[in-house]
């Protein structure tokens, strides 16, 4: 039996996966089966395009512990492709299933589509320098990061089958305790409209004041490169933009003192307009920029703040 499976522990992400999953299923003329850990979401999932929902119930609240049960459903139904939401929990589950099921796994796909009857994905490699296109083997798992696809539009007239499934949780003596929410000191960069980004070109933490002033003038949030957060701790870890940090999509991204290593750029290059200010005209950030000023940030940024103030 063929078909497309989708799973995420997060209903918002499940709806985004259904956009991609429905398109694949229609191209291959197969059905979409969604797995969920939450019975109350089944109607919404069907409205968003699933033909069948398997609502898994179990005694364990830890989403990762359902990997073996999901792998069991995959063994039984033999789907052509399995789309899993690329949250960190989702990637954990995906890799566990891939190990149990001995199947392929493509993480953080930028796109997934049917080309000449085969499912193909693209993803970035070498820190964002290159894009790799793969033709998937049957039964391959693909994770897709949140917000890669828009949520599927709900249509309440759609109908589908709902199956309840009692999950068997393996007893491997895993004990989950002390779950602490991370309190965000700043706004969520992932949804910011404008971002001022600072890098190691800043001489001292006092210069963060310039970033704050510029951000205030622009109505922007403040982000940074990895070393500003991880080495200097001038901003919290969740403020750094890059491959292993935040992926941002603002209308305007304006950086100063950022050289533009590819690992950073990959987090910012979905911005509509990229502006760079740096004294090194050979800095790679300028290749990634729409507009740039070559100059000393200590001259340029105060002049820009003043100009914007008028």
């Amino acid at each position, binding site marked *: 039996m063929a078909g497309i499976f989708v799973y995420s522990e997060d209903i918002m992400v499940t709806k985004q996966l259904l956009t991609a999953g429905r398109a694949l299923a229609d191209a291959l003329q197969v059905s979409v089966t969604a797995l969920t850990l939450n019975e109350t979401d089944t109607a919404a999932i069907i409205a968003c395009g699933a033909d069948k929902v398997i609502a898994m119930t179990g005694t364990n609240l830890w989403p990762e512990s359902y990997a073996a049960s999901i792998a069991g459903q995959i063994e039984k139904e033999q789907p052509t492709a399995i789309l899993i939401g690329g949250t960190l929990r989702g990637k954990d589950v995906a890799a*566990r299933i891939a190990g149990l099921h001995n199947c*392929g796994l493509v993480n953080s796909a930028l796109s997934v589509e049917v080309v000449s009857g085969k499912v193909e994905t693209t993803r970035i490699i070498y820190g964002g320098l290159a*894009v790799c296109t793969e033709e998937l083997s049957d039964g*391959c798992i693909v994770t897709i990061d949140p917000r890669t696809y828009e949520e599927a539009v709900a249509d309440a007239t759609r109908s589908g089958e709902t199956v309840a499934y009692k999950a068997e949780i393996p007893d491997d003596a895993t004990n989950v*305790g002390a779950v602490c929410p991370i309190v965000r000191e700043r706004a969520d960069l992932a949804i910011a409209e404008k971002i001022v980004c600072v890098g190691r070109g800043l001489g001292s933490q006092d210069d963060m004041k310039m970033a704050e002033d510029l951000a205030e003038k622009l109505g922007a949030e403040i982000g940074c490169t990895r070393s500003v957060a991880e080495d200097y701790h001038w901003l919290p870890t969740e403020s750094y933009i890059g491959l292993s940090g935040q992926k941002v999509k603002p209308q305007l991204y304006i950086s100063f003192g950022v050289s533009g290593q590819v690992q950073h750029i990959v987090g910012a290059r979905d911005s509509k307009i990229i502006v760079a200010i740096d004294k090194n005209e050979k800095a790679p950030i300028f290749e990634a920029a729409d507009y740039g000023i070559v100059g000393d940030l200590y*001259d340029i940024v105060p002049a820009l703040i003043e100009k914007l103030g008028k």
Partner: protein
Amino acid sequence: MNIVACYKWVLDEQDIKVVPGSLSLDMSRAKGKISEYDKNVIEEAVLQAEKHAATVTALTFGNSKAKQSLKDALSRGPAKGFWVNDAAADIADGFVTANVLTAAVKKIGEYDLILFGEGSSDVYGQQVGPRVAALLGIPVVTFATKIEVADGKVTATRKLGDCTEDVTVTLPAVITLLPEVNKPRIPGLKQVLGASKKPVEELSLAALGLEKEAVAPKNKIKSIRGYAMDRKNEIYAAGTTEEKVAALVSSLTKEGLL
């Protein structure tokens, strides 16, 4: 206690150039390095070993060029190296790498803690650690920023975007680490010199006795192309500060951003 620190010898992505026009990749000047995330892995293994009087084995799967990685890896503190030397590593995916490393870990025999990076700095597949755990049938905790071993168990603090959680599992176990777990030491001359005296076991892929399909990558790579940067590249380099700022503000106004 026995700790296995898994690492990958990768091309330094900073040295890879995208050829304009064709968007093919020029790797002719790219040097090798231990994957950045795996420097944290080796460091954590050694830190844990210092605390618990454990033996650390550095394990890698790489082609013949990975030989030079062992000296670097061992200068960071592990007692011995284990290298599966085969050109198949060049095209291995997460499935193949996990099969090879699982077979290698079984060959090493004694293991309590197996550490991996969350991904490699070249292809960042983010899957080998949990796959190895599944193949060995042992627990795994991913994305750890802190680990503590006590009483035959390991507690790892995971960082998951919107929360942290402490997960305790019984040893033997696999843990994958986030880079913030530690700051890797920079080996001194003495450590570098000492590294060449440490034992390294080299094995061919054939010696691991894996089935043919276990070392065949799952997916077909159709193309690898440089990411096309399509930007306006209007750079103001000449003129006074005021002129340059005025030019930028004018452009951003035209874009409707101010």
